C-alpha cells in the first residue's frame, strides 16, 4: 500500500471532524467541524500528485518545462476554488440558521433543541 502522507493527514482530519460532529452538543462547534471537514476534502484534492519540491503551475515559460512531474496539477486547484466558494456560502447559511435557531429555542444544545422542538 503506497499512500501519500499529505493525503493521510487529510483523511485523519476528516475523521477528527467526524468524531467532533458525533460528540459535540454545541451547534457552533458542529458548524466549525463542518468547515473543517470541507477543508479536509480540499486538502485531499490538492494532495493528488504531490511530490516534494513541487511548483505552482503558473508562469510564461510553462510550456518549455521538460517534465511536468514537478508541476502541480491545475485541474483540482480550479475545482477546489469552486468548492471553497461553495463552502463559504454554506457556512454563512449555517451561521444564520444557527443564529435564528438560537434565538427561537434559547439554547445552542442539539439535545435540548430536539426536546423543545417536540413540544407544542
Amino acid at each position, binding site marked *: 500500500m503506497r499512500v501519500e502522507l499529505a493525503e493521510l493527514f487529510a483523511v485523519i482530519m476528516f475523521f477528527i471532524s467526524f468524531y467532533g460532529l458525533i460528540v459535540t452538543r454545541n451547534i457552533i462547534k458542529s458548524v466549525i467541524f463542518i468547515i473543517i471537514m470541507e477543508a479536509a*476534502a480540499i486538502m485531499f484534492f490538492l494532495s493528488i500528485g504531490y511530490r516534494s519540491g513541487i511548483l505552482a503551475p503558473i508562469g510564461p515559460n510553462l510550456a518549455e518545462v521538460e517534465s511536468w512531474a514537478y508541476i502541480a496539477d491545475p485541474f483540482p486547484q480550479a475545482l477546489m476554488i469552486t*468548492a471553497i466558494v461553495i463552502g463559504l456560502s454554506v457556512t454563512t447559511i449555517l451561521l444564520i440558521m444557527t443564529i435564528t435557531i438560537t434565538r427561537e429555542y434559547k439554547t445552542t444544545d442539539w439535545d435540548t433543541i430536539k426536546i423543545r422542538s417536540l413540544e407544542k
Partner: protein
Amino acid sequence: MLTNFVIIPILVAVFLYLFPLNKSARFLALLAQLGLTAAAFWLFLETRQGEIFLSIGSYHSVLGIYLRADLLSAMFIFLTAIFFLVATIYSFHEDFGRLFWFLMFIWQAALIGIFLAADLFNIFVLMEVSAVIVAVLIMYNRLKRSMYDGIIYFAVNIILMQFYLFGLGYIYRLTGTVDMYLMSERIHAYHYNYLMLPYAAIMTFIALKCALVPLFAWLPKAHGSAAAPPAVSAILSGLHIKSTIYLFIRFQDLFELVASTQFFLILGIITGVFGFVMAIAQTDIKLILAYHTISQVGLIFTALSIADATYLGGFTYSFVGGLYHIFNHALFKGGLFLSAGVLAAAYGTRNVYKIRGVFRAYPVIGAATAMAIFGIIGAPFFNGSISKYFMVSDADTLLNGVLIFMSLGTIVSFVKYSNILFGKPELPEDAPRKLPILQQTMVLLMGVLCFLSGIFGVQTIQFLFDITVYIDLWGYIEKTLIFFASLAVGVLIYKYYVKESAFLKRIKNVEMGFRTMVFSIGAFFTTILLVVGVFYQP
C-alpha cells in the same frame, strides 16, 4: 442547445427577483414554464433518434464540461418540466412573494442540470445548489419547528457532500478525468481494489439523499415540514428524491466492477418495510405521506436491484417496473401532497382523525385523492398495479412474498389515510366554500394521470422508455386477486390492530437527533465498505 435548459430558468429567476413585478411576475413564470415544457417535450422526442452530446467550453471536448441527454435523462427532464408547470399553476393564486419564484426557477435549473450532467464535479455543484434551495424552501414560512428541520436537513446534506468529494477525488486520481463516460471507458482497466473506497463513499452519499435506512431521518422533517408551501412538498417527494435515484442508476453502471446489487436489494427491502411501519404509526397526514415516500423509495430500490440488472446491462422486466414506478410514484405522491396541502389549509389541521368527509365537502379533491390512493396501493387499472406487476416478474418465490408483504403495508397505511374521505365534514367556520379552480384542476389532473397511465400502461412504457413490454392477462388477473385478498387483510389489520396498538403509539415519536444521524452515516459507510471490500469480492 442543452445549456439553454439550465441557463434560461436561471436568467428568468434572477430577472423575476431583480424587478419587482408583483402580480405580473406569475404570468411571466407561467409563460416560461410553458416554454420549458414544450422544449423538454421536444428534447424528449429528439433523444429517440439518439443521444445528444454537448461539450461546454472547449474545442477538445474532454477539457470542458460534458452535457449529455439520453432517453432516461430526457424522461426525467420531461417529468421535471411537467411537475414545475403543475406547481406553478397550483401556486398561481397564492402570494408567496418573488423569492418563491426565484427559488423555484433555480431549483428547476439545478434539477435539469443534474439530469443532463455527465461531469461528476458538476453534479457536486448542482447538488449543493439544490440543497441550499430546499433548505430555504422547507423553512419558508419561518415557523419555529421548521428551523430545526431546516438546519438538520442542510447540515447532514453538507456532511455527505464531503464524502462524495472524497470518492470523486479517488476516481479522479485513478482515471485522470471527472467525466462519467470517459471514466466508465477507463475504469475497466483497473482492478476492483482501486474502486472499493470511492464506491463506498459515493454510495453513502446516494443512500442518504435517497433516505435509505438508516439514513432516513431527515426526510420526514424535510418533506413533512409545515412551513413549506404544498407545491414544494409535492416536488420534494415526487421529483427531487428521484434525482438521486437517477444518479444511483448511473453510478451502478459506472461502478459495474464493484457494484453490489444484492446489498441494495436487501437495503431496499428493509427500507420499504421500515417506511410503511412508520407511516402506519403517524397521525399527521403530511408525515404519513413523507414516511410513505421512504417506503416507496425502498420498493424502487428493490425493483432496480432484482436479478443484478443495471440500466446499460440490458433490461429485465423488474428493472422496467422499477423505472416505471419512479414515474408513477411522482404522479400519485405529487397528487397526494398537493391535495393534502389544500385539505390542511381548509380544515386547519393535519391530523388524520380530525379531517373528515372530504368527499362531501370537496368532491373534486376527494375524487383526485381516491384516484391517487388507488394508484399507490396498486388497484387494478391504475398505474401502480402495472409497475408492481412488472416488478415481481423476475422475483423468486421468497422475494415475491416480500413484495406482496410490502404492498400489504402500503394498503394498511392508506386504509388509514382514506379515513379522511368518508364521514360527516366538520369544517371550521372560516373554511372556504369553494376552492380555487386552478388548484382543483391540478390535483384532479394528477389523479386522472394516475388512471390513464394505468389503463395505457404498456403504451406509456413504450412512450417513455422506448421499451416494448407485454402483459400476460392471466398473470395480471392473478395479481388482481392477490390485491383484493391483501386489501381484505389490510382492512382487517387496520380494524383490529392499528387502531389501538401500543407499539405503534410508542414508535410514533421516535426521532433521531443530529449526532445520531452523523453516527449512522459513519455506520453505513463502514458497513458498505466492509460489504464491498471483504464479503463481496467478485
